[in-house]
């Protein structure tokens, strides 16, 4: 486990958090948050916390993202859901 990898990981972590915060499009920032969750669980795994990493990956990137998307899909106008976005 080289130090470069760890530094890279943390830089990406902070970058993903900034992206989740600053991007104006909600869907993109939800995806950024999901990426952030995965990176965080990698960081936990590096810090020798396998239990925490597993939970973080499964809960934050699985269920919470699903619930986020379920909630977000309802802020669209009624007709938009399920249609192709290119109209």
């Amino acid at each position: 486990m080289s130090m470069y990898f760890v530094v890279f990981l943390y830089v990406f972590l902070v970058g993903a958090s900034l992206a989740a915060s600053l991007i104006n499009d909600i869907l993109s920032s939800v995806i950024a948050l999901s990426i952030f969750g995965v990176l965080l669980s990698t960081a936990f795994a590096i810090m020798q916390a396998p239990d925490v990493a597993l939970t973080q990956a499964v809960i934050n990137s699985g269920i919470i993202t699903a619930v986020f998307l379920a909630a977000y899909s309802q802020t669209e106008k009624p007709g938009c859901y399920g249609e192709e976005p290119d109209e």
Partner: protein
Amino acid sequence: MLMLGYSSAVVIFCTGLYTIMARRNLFKTVIGLSLMEASVLLVIVTSGFIPGGVPPIAPFRGVAVNPLPHAFTLTAIVIGASDIALALAFIVKLNKHYGTADIDKIRGLRG
């Protein structure tokens, strides 16, 4: 490595706080809460890490990392997840009424 973890946690905490205070969209607020929570988790896990340690699963060779923060973090993750799910449920309900998630357009949430 410890300092790195702590510093990024502080940056992420402040990012989350800023998101809650400055952004005017309810989804952004929830994202901010999620970021703040994640940073606290990072602080807790980092505080138990020992460079060169092994995971706390017996039988271990060498020095194991501190298992107590892991237990706390597990608890905090689940609690945070239920908070966020609840916040999203409220947003869905409000959105049905107002048709928007913009804080400025929802009467009671201004200020």
